[in-house]
Structure formats: structure tokens, C-alpha cells
């Protein structure tokens, strides 16, 4: 015991150690000032993590202030574990998206699985029952064996975790681009549901209240998320002390989830917080900070999976499936009883104090003592030094398609491109129906639709997640706007009004001026689009330094949106429903090849995208939503990757009904056959239904009649030119696109 205490003290927290832990000399000085002395090893470990980019947002926090966060439905904004919005009938929806990029690049199955576990805990930490997951994935192209390994591992990991805990994975998106070859992206979004009064915050309160750790044993998992921490202080030669890959245990999570929700339901907790990055250090200091209190905790009381763990290791361990809660002493027995029922470990490890300090004890001896404000609020925040790139940041993508080619061949090539092809390979590995809420499953509608009737609510939620990094790379401001618009349009396609937005900002190294510029432009684009649509940002996550020797990833803001619609029975899918239904294009839509999938396949990448008229787009989204919500529209599908022709092919395949359309009028306004067929850009939606049902759309906005559903083929005509493909040809290209890359 004394031996350990001495070791903690002996390990000095001098400047050199600080640097090896990723802190700058100035940051170290600031810590010394704040403490009034040099930190010891335990304190330095805690500071280095609390002041890491991951926990402090030191390079992004100032920028995030530009995002609008207020809205009529907001119940909890950014700052809590998950944001929440009101969906009526006394119910709230809590949601958030989070990245697990680096762990997934190391071990895709476990990295993705623990990513799901982490975001699920964020949602039940606010008292909401997780009801849906979505995933946004980016990998290198599938001709790379490593990308195939990462992709199949990540998908299996997401499925494994989500399926095992009984939370439906209802949507997502996947892109394969060379810019993600060395840095894949694995973002997961979780959506939860709670009666409004059951929502709980993480602020610790009440001097003398007990701090109880729930869930898994603590091991040396992912210590610090950075091996420097361990190697700086431990004998690297001793393999038993090396930090290790985090392994997800969904069974433990499932019990923890049910147990936590039952504790909340019975009103037994004062506050609740998950243990995520930086483990106990971060969760204890966040809880203390939010409640403006202090916390004493004794690491010797933390149940361990491995022997001989040091105090600092226990403080920074990222072992999964753990939660921390604050309990009034008289309720402790009751809490432990509920935990025993669920076979969840529960251990009192400390208590709330009035000291305003985080004190780390080891068998009662103080081994660390830090002001909570210093840990949470005093990390220096940095201004970015943005500057537009002076040279091209990204090379042209490899050329896969010649410039000349028949429209039919081009369409088949696009449909078979893994970015557009069916993602069935992935979503069939996800349980998308558990919970009995899923009205629209993956692949059948632009947004997932989850009904609320079984939860005491009415109507349904609509959820979508979007973000096209390549287009953001072409133009960070417009690309980010497009991501928000696409998400909102996806919601409108099922008739839903957006209530709130979450986002994950995946970028390269922000200390580089051109990356800072991408980040700033993208955040400004997000902010502008949110204002135009009047959708508040209620939470999110930032993942920086996604960069390798070949350069940064494409700047990839991923946008998740939750909306509400009144009648799920009316929510259209993408599939054509009846022969004879009219097909029309709702605009404003000005497609162009710049930034399109076709341009990519031809080995080019545009510099700049056409400006978007945000007001007009916002108006069109409202009009579409209102038209859809009144019923009568049989199908609605947003035109996105691969342009109109690909969107129409998807309507045909999902409906199992052919289509005949005439595009000459559109081509006249767009200019160019290829741009008409395959051009991309904000705003276009294909709708079908009886003419009378679509008619009202022409009064509120731009509507162009294209043709009608029927037959067994996909026929696109443009004056004298025509393109006709049988359903089976189209289906083969679309369905085989991804599986063929694996054989």
C-alpha cells in the first residue's frame, strides 16, 4: 500500500512527462498554476485526458458556439450526454451521434461494437430507453483487402452489439472513397425514448450522497486511448501492463441498460452518467462540474478485472459497460437490491462533497487532489487559424469509367458502384425490427419510421443520417448545407417535421490551416442550413486528426435528424406502388456533374459546388412534407448519389414496377443529357401517386410531370434518345454491386 502511494508520488508530473502525454509546455504551466504546485503522476494522467482534444474540444469548442441550439421542442441541448426534444404526449426523444473511428481502424469488429455500446450508454444515461441505432460508415474502396476487412468487420460488430441488446438498427449510410483508406469512419447514432419527467441529468448533487459504480469490472482497456500514457509510466517490457483493445460485452450492457432504467423508473437516482472516454476521470469530474460540487472517490474500491492496477490506470481505464450514479444514502440498499436482481455489479466507490475538488483516494490516502473547474473548464481553448488551401488537397480518384459510354451502361455502372449499390449486405446483418416500432425498414424509405403507439405516444418518429464527404471536400460550406438539406428532405419524404439535429464532425488535423478552413466553412454551412430550416442542434461529437501521411480524410460532417409525423400509415416508401401512378419531380433541382458519383467514377473531382438557395430549399421541404402528410402520395424518394436515373431505378426496384419517363423538358432547363440523368445537387425528389394527389405540389412549388409507373422495364426518354433496361438487369447491377466485390 505504502509502496503504491510512494509510486504515485514518485512519478512526477513534470513538463517532460506532460509532453509525453500530449500536453504542451503552456498547458503544463497552466496546470501548475491552477494547482499551485506540480501535479503528481495520477493528477497528470487525469489532466492529460481531461485536457485532451477528445474531452475538452479545445480546437472546436469556440466554433461549435456558432451552431443554433434553441428551438421550440428542445428539452436538453448540447452539454448533456444526449440532446432531447419533445415529441408530444409527455414523451421525449433523446439522441446523439458519436464516432469510434480510431478504435475501428485498429480492430473493426470490436471498435464498431464498442462504438455502439458507447452511444447507447449516452442515451440511457439521460434516462431514455434506446429504441433505434443508425450508422454512418466510410472506408477505402472495396478493391482494397484492408477496406473489405474493415467494412465487413465494422458491420458485423455493429450488428453483434445492437442485435444482442435488442435495439433496432434502422438506418445508416456507407461510402467507399480512397480518402478513407487509412482512416475509416465509424459513426453511430442512437435514439431513445423517455417520459419527459424521467429524463435525468448528470449533475452530481447533495453533499454526502454516495457515488456508485455500476457494471463491468475495470481492466486496462484502452488506457488513455493513447499508449503514451502507459509507456510513460509503466514498464513497457511487461506485456501484462500494456493497454489493451476494448472488447464489447453486449450482454453486460443489456443488463446495465435494464437495471439503469429500472433505477430511474423507481426514482432511486440523483444523477447518472456513463463512463466513456477517459473513464472515471471524465465521468466523475463532469458530474461534479455540472453540479458545482466535489467528489471523493477511492480507487481501491473499484472492482478490478486485473491485479496490480495503479491508481492512475483505474482512473483512466476505458473498460466498457460501466455507469456511475449518485444515490442518497438512505436509498442505497434499494439501489443495490435492484442491481442484484439484474445481476449487475454495484459498488460504492465514493461520495459527493462540498469541496469543489476531485479527490482520488487509495485506501483512504489521497493520491490526487484537483479542483474540478480546473479539469473541466480551464483547459485552454484554441482559435483555429483557417486558411483556404493553396494547392489541391485531394488527388483525383482513380478512373473507373470512360467518358464515352451509352447512358444505359453508365447507369448500370453507377448502380453497381458500392456507393450507390444496395447496402443489403450490411443492413440484413442488423435487427431492424426489434421493439415492434419499425414501420419503414432499411432500404424501403428515405427515413426510418418508428411508430410511437406502443409507447403511449402518437404518430411516429422519422430518423435519417446523411453526409457526403466528397461533396464537402469539393466545397465545405455548400457540402455541409447539402448534408442538412438531404437529411431534412429525407424526413419530408415520409412526411415528418424535423425536431432536432445531431452531428459528428469528422475532420483531419485542425492545426493545419486548410483543415481548419474546412472545419470552419462546414460548421458555418451547418449553422446556416439549421437556421434556414429552423432545426436546432441538440448535440453531437467531434472527431479530429483523421489524417495519415497521404493527407486528411475528406471533411465529413455527418448529420442525424429526428422528426415527427402524425400518421405512419401514410408515410410513403421509395417504391412505386401501382401501375398507372403518375411520376413527378419536385424541385427546385439544378443537377450538375460537379461532385457527383459519375464524376468520381471518371476520375475527377470538382473544385466548388453550385451555390444553394437555402430559402427556396427550405420552402420546398415544408411543402413536400405537408403534401406527404395529407396522404395520397404513394412514393417519395430524394434524388441523391447517382442523380435522377439512379433514384428512379431504386423506386422501380423497391416497388417491383417499371417506369416510363420523358426527361426532355428537364434536360432543357438542366442543359446536358448526362447532367439530367446523373447530375447531383440539392432539392430533387421523385414522387408518385394518382395525379390528383400530386397536383397540390405544383401549387406550392416546382413540380415537373415526368411519366408513369408500369411495365417491367425502366425507360428514360429524352426526345429521340432513349434508355431502356429490364428490371432484372437493373436489379442485378444494384444487388450485386457490393457482394461481387467480395467474391
Amino acid at each position, binding site marked *: 500500500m505504502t509502496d503504491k502511494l510512494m509510486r504515485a508520488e514518485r512519478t512526477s508530473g513534470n513538463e517532460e512527462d506532460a509532453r509525453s502525454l500530449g500536453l504542451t509546455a503552456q498547458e503544463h504551466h497552466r496546470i501548475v498554476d491552477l494547482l499551485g504546485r506540480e501535479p503528481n503522476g495520477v493528477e497528470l494522467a487525469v489532466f492529460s485526458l481531461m485536457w485532451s482534444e477528445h474531452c475538452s474540444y479545445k480546437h472546436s469548442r469556440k466554433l461549435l458556439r456558432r451552431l443554433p441550439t434553441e428551438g421550440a421542442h428542445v428539452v436538453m441541448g448540447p452539454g448533456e450526454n444526449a440532446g432531447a426534444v419533445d415529441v408530444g404526449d409527455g414523451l421525449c426523444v433523446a439522441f446523439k451521434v458519436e464516432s469510434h473511428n480510431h478504435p475501428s481502424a485498429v480492430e473493426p469488429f470490436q471498435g464498431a461494437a464498442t462504438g455502439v455500446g458507447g452511444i447507447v450508454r449516452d442515451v440511457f444515461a439521460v434516462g431514455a430507453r434506446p429504441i433505434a441505432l443508425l450508422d454512418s460508415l466510410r472506408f477505402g474502396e472495396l478493391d482494397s483487402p484492408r477496406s473489405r476487412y474493415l467494412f465487413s468487420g465494422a458491420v458485423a460488430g455493429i450488428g453483434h452489439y445492437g442485435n444482442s441488446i435488442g435495439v433496432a438498427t434502422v438506418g445508416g449510410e456507407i461510402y467507399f472513397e480512397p480518402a478513407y483508406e487509412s482512416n475509416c469512419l465509424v459513426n453511430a447514432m442512437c435514439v431513445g425514448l423517455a417520459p419527459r419527467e424521467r429524463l435525468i441529468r448528470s449533475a452530481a448533487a447533495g453533499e454526502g450522497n454516495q457515488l456508485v459504480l455500476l457494471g463491468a469490472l475495470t481492466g486496462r482497456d484502452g488506457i488513455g486511448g493513447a499508449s503514451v500514457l502507459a509507456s510513460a509510466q509503466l514498464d513497457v517490457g511487461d506485456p501484462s501492463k500494456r493497454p489493451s483493445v476494448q472488447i464489447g460485452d453486449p450482454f453486460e450492457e*443489456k443488463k446495465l441498460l*435494464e437495471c439503469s432504467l429500472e433505477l430511474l423508473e423507481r426514482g432511486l437516482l440523483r444523477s447518472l452518467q456513463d463512463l466513456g472516454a477517459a473513464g472515471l476521470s471524465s465521468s466523475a469530474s463532469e458530474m461534479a462540474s455540472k453540479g458545482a460540487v466535489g467528489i471523493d472517490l477511492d480507487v481501491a474500491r473499484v472492482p478490478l478485472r486485473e491485479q496490480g492496477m495503479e491508481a492512475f490506470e483505474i482512473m483512466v481505464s476505458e473498460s466498457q459497460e460501466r455507469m456511475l450514479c449518485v444515490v442518497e444514502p438512505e436509498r442505497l440498499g434499494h439501489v443495490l437490491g435492484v442491481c442484484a436482481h439484474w445481476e449487475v455489479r454495484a459498488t460504492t466507490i465514493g461520495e459527493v462533497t462540498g469541496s469543489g475538488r476531485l479527490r482520488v483516494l487509495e485506501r483512504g490516502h489521497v493520491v490526487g487532489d484537483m479542483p474540478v473547474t480546473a479539469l473541466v473548464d480551464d483547459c485552454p481553448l484554441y482559435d483555429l487559424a483557417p486558411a483556404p488551401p493553396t494547392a489541391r488537397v485531394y488527388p483525383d480518384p482513380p478512373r473507373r469509367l470512360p467518358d464515352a459510354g451509352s447512358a444505359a451502361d453508365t447507369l448500370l455502372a453507377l448502380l453497381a458502384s458500392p456507393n450507390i449499390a444496395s447496402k443489403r449486405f450490411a443492413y440484413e446483418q442488423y*435487427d431492424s425490427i*426489434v421493439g415492434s416500432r*419499425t414501420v419503414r425498414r432499411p432500404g424501403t424509405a428515405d427515413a426510418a419510421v418508428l411508430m410511437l403507439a406502443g409507447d403511449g405516444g402518437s404518430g411516429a418518429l422519422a430518423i435519417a443520417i446523411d453526409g457526403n464527404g466528397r461533396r464537402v471536400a469539393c466545397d465545405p460550406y455548400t457540402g455541409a448545407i447539402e448534408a442538412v438539406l438531404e437529411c431534412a428532405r429525407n424526413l419530408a419524404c415520409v412526411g415528418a417535421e424535423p425536431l432536432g439535429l445531431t452531428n459528428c464532425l469528422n475532420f483531419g488535423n485542425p492545426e493545419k490551416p486548410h483543415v481548419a478552413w474546412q472545419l470552419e466553412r462546414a460548421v458555418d454551412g451547418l449553422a446556416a442550413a439549421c437556421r434556414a430550416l429552423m432545426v436546432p442542434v441538440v448535440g453531437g461529437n467531434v472527431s479530429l486528426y483523421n489524417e495519415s501521411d497521404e493527407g486528411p480524410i475528406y471533411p465529413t460532417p455527418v448529420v442525424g435528424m429526428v422528426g415527427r409525423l402524425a400518421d405512419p*400509415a401514410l408515410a410513403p416508401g421509395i417504391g412505386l406502388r401501382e401501375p398507372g401512378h403518375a411520376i413527378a419531380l419536385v424541385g427546385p433541382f439544378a443537377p450538375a456533374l460537379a461532385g457527383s458519383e459519375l464524376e468520381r467514377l471518371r476520375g475527377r473531382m470538382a473544385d466548388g459546388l453550385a451555390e444553394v438557395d437555402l430559402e427556396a430549399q427550405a420552402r420546398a421541404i415544408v411543402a413536400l412534407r405537408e403534401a406527404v402528410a395529407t396522404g395520397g402520395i404513394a412514393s417519395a424518394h430524394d434524388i441523391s448519389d447517382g442523380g435522377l436515373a439512379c433514384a428512379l431505378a431504386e423506386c422501380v426496384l423497391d416497388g417491383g414496377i417499371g417506369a416510363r419517363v420523358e426527361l426532355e423538358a428537364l434536360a432543357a432547363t438542366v442543359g446536358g443529357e448526362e447532367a439530367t440523368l446523373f447530375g447531383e445537387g440539392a432539392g430533387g425528389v421523385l414522387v408518385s401517386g394518382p395525379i390528383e394527389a400530386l397536383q397540390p405540389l405544383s401549387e406550392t412549388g416546382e413540380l415537373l410531370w415526368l411519366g408513369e409507373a408500369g411495365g417491367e422495364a425502366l425507360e428514360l426518354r429524352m426526345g429521340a434518345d432513349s434508355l431502356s433496361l429490364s428490371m432484372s438487369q437493373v436489379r442485378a447491377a444494384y444487388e450485386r454491386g457490393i457482394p461481387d466485390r467480395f467474391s
Partner: protein
Amino acid sequence: MKFGVVRFPGSCDEHDALLACRRFADAELLWHGERDLKGVDAVVIPGGFSYGDYLRVGAIARFSPVMEAVGEWAAAGGPVLGICNGFQVLCEAGLLPGALLVNAELRFLCRQVEVEVVNAETPFTSTCDPGERLSVPVKHTTGRYFAPELELDELERSGQVVLRYLPGQNPNDSRRDIAGVTNRAGNVLGLMPHPEHAVDALTGSTDGARIFESLASLSPA
């Protein structure tokens, strides 16, 4: 008429099953740690990953106290319906013949499939027409039904094969396209498709309701 839906730690579809049962009768949850079946008239063992399905699917759950009671109940002729993980648990417990192996594709698979009612004369299918086709989802990693050939012949002969995947619909390479089987006495049914996820047109199909309807039409024990 009252259904009891067993809940293990790691069950996932117990509320879905409860909701489905409640469309036709009373229903309540039965906790894995208690031997008491609370006077229910039919037992449902739902889908999920009991005990994480660590070790082997269904292997640990069969030892739980509630399963002792279910065993006695089944031996006395009480109806027991095992769905997905419930099917796996019943096989492990020896209440149903055969075993479930990992899907030929080694992957979890969630998809709507069509099955044929091979035997419409069981307590679980009495409201179906013989040969009726039902559209019901499957979602599992370990659903490839296996039994030795002689036993399969015997199962077919004695009408224990109740549900079969339609040609081209077998999602896991189950022997003889078997999707659901009963025990010899016919009072215990295990099936991989999830009828509880097919009781509402809004969420896909109502064909699964037949199973619950059939059970609910039994006269209370």
C-alpha cells in the same frame, strides 16, 4: 386465457411477444429466476440472446429455475412456444428434437421470409389452412436446423414438422427447409421465424398473428 412470456437476462423480443399475445389474450412476463409460472395457460420463450448466448446459444438459459418449471409444464401437456432463441433454448433443454447450428453464411440475417404451414393441426396452427403461406421475418445467426436423417424422417412422418421455408426462402440452410418443429406430443413448438413481429400491418405483415390466435383459442387449462 393467459400467456406467460419468459424473460431471461439478455432476452430482446420479450416485449414484442407480450404485445403480440395481448392482442388475443392476457399476458405477463415470467422472470427467469422464479419457478412460478403464475397460472398461465401457455408459455412463450421469446427471442434474444439469453445470457449473451455465450458458450453456445440457449445453453445456459436451459438451466434457469423457470425452465425447470417449463419442463414440468410441458411434460404435463401444457403448450410452450419457443421463438428463435426460445427454440434454441428448448432444443438445448431436450424439450424439442434437434439442434440449431450457425447459419451457412455465418452471418446474422434479418429478412422477411415465407413459410408454409405443413401441419395445421397443432395447437399453434389450428387457425391456419393446411399449406397456407405466411410472411414472417427471421433474424438470427444460429438458425440452421439440424437433426440426424433418421430422426428427420421420423419428424416428418409424425407431423412434427410444422413450418417449412418455401423453396428459395431457406435463409440458413436448415435441413429439409425446416422452420419450425414440435415435440412428439405436439404441445411444444420451436420456430426460427418471429411471428410476434408479424402481427401488425403497419410493421410489415399480420400473418404471424395466426400462431397467437390459435393458442388463444385453446380452452384454458
